[in-house]
């Protein structure tokens, strides 16, 4: 009976109110009401387009490892050369070039004596690539590179592996070069003679393969799905 009175004389309700209020004061937070939309999932073609931009950028920037000459160098230590792309072209920004004699464990050497080289973006620096992708105006993307590999001066080729990034607006995409199929850059050609770039973009795995001509193939799930025009960066579905 005593318990029942406690329930009916109001003390129980008061205690419940106080308890509820106290708990809520401690633990309640307003739900968010402002929209926080996720960025839309990229389609395969959109992912391929991002990979295509990287493929074009690597084909344009990579050969500098071979084409660089002392005439382009400013004051520098032996074998370590900063290089800034000349203004007015479709590439702007700067990269670092390092040359070695005796392979990757060798000593820095004059650029022309090297059998091994590095091409990389200095910390915080990007290379900006402008492309006309058919929108009626050029779009710009920022690229970084971290490449390394043996140089064959006689053949004028460099066989590089490594990685890099593509920043397009708020989106950043990474890529790596296949260890088993490194990219073969040529000082005489704008198109790598071989090699495969690996991407995972928005969950889509893509491989971009160079073959020495002005196109590169985009493979998704073991199927060649798109072709890249290495001059324009435009992607075309394979029908």
């Amino acid at each position: 009976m005593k318990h029942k009175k406690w329930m009916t004389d109001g003390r129980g309700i008061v205690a419940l109110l106080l308890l509820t209020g106290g708990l809520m004061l401690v633990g309640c937070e307003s739900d968010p009401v402002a929209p926080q939309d996720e960025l839309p999932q990229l389609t395969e073609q959109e992912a391929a387009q991002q990979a295509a931009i990287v493929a074009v950028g690597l084909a344009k920037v990579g050969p500098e490892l071979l084409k660089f000459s002392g005439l382009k160098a400013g004051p520098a230590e032996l074998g370590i050369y900063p290089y800034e792309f000349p203004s007015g072209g479709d590439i702007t920004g700067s990269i670092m070039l390092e040359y070695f004699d005796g392979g990757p464990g060798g000593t820095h050497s004059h650029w022309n004596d090297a059998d091994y080289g590095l091409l990389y973006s200095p910390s915080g620096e990007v290379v900006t690539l402008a492309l006309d992708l058919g929108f009626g105006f050029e779009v710009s993307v920022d690229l970084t590179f971290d490449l390394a590999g043996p140089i064959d001066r006689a053949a004028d080729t460099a066989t590089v592996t490594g990685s890099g990034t593509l920043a397009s607006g708020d989106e950043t995409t990474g890529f790596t070069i296949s260890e088993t199929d490194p990219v073969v850059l040529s000082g005489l050609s704008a198109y790598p003679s071989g090699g495969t770039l690996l991407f995972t973009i928005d969950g889509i795995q893509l491989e971009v393969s160079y073959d020495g001509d002005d196109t590169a193939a985009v493979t998704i799930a073991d199927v060649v799905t798109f072709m890249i025009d290495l001059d324009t960066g435009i992607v075309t579905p394979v029908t």
Partner: protein
Amino acid sequence: MRLFSWSGRFPGWRGNARIGMTAVLVVGLVMVGSTDAARADSLQQLMEQVGPEYAKAYASPFIHTFGPNQNSNLYSTANIPFGKLVFGFGVKVMGTYMNEEDQSFRKVVQIDDLGVLDPDNPDLDGVSGTAVMSGPTIFGSTADEDIGQIDFYSNGVYLGSVDGITGFWETRWAPLFAPEAYIGGILGFKFTLRYLPTMSVGDLENITYMGYGLQWSASGLLDNFPVDLMVGFFSTKLDVENTQGLGQDKLFDSEANSYFVAVSKSWPALTVYGGYALEDSKMDVSYYYEDENFPALTQQVNFSVDGRQESRFTAGVTLDVLVDLNLEAGFGDLTTYSAGVMLGF
């Protein structure tokens, strides 16, 4: 007329003297614009710089907190006499404490035809894209470096950006205050009125506010019941005048309604109360968006948003020492705190 300069590199767009654009969207028409002076002197001037999709997202914390504020502190006891005239007056102050996320937003809108952005560029005809609007909300950062922006993408490629606007008032509290008067005590009824004469508060000009409600307490019929019981409703309207003088009467026009049941227990000088309410709110936003450089982009902007909160639990305490002082917390989708000081007779 070329509506948008696509030439040059897109990062160069940011900070252009004035840029306007329009895009036909799946969900309707969005218009955004920008000036080199994105900081403006008033909220209205800020809103005038953006189209409805941006404005909806930007103003969403303001829109969704207004209703809960207006529906706060509607009672401080469930006891109303059956045969004793009571009346009083005072002031209520409310504040909704927003989630930290509400100081910024990101709104993604699909664009069916980018060609609408630049009719002089045939390459864009029929090209679809995405607009990603992001930045501070109305209660977000007011710093120029945190200005909002609209990024455009197509085929996975970033095309460029234009500036949005800064926040208006950086805070997590959305406040409201209201003078209130009541009269009742006959057969358990009480009529309550909230009213503000037309006034300006900060940068909000010509605010008008009025609310009214009726409560009925069963206390007179339930003499031996351990607590007091009460039901009631309250309806309020709050609007802010549009001072553009271009045919829009109201920049913001809001209304809120609450239907509640309450219970309270009183001791000398102390009342503890609580309740549950079903509520709704709505805000209409109207302004005239004018692009001085590109008159074709000028349009009337009108949109209406229903408030998120549809119910709440209330817990409060009232101290009766010379005046009635009550403190209250309301818990629904949003958490609202309020206080009132009433002089009753």
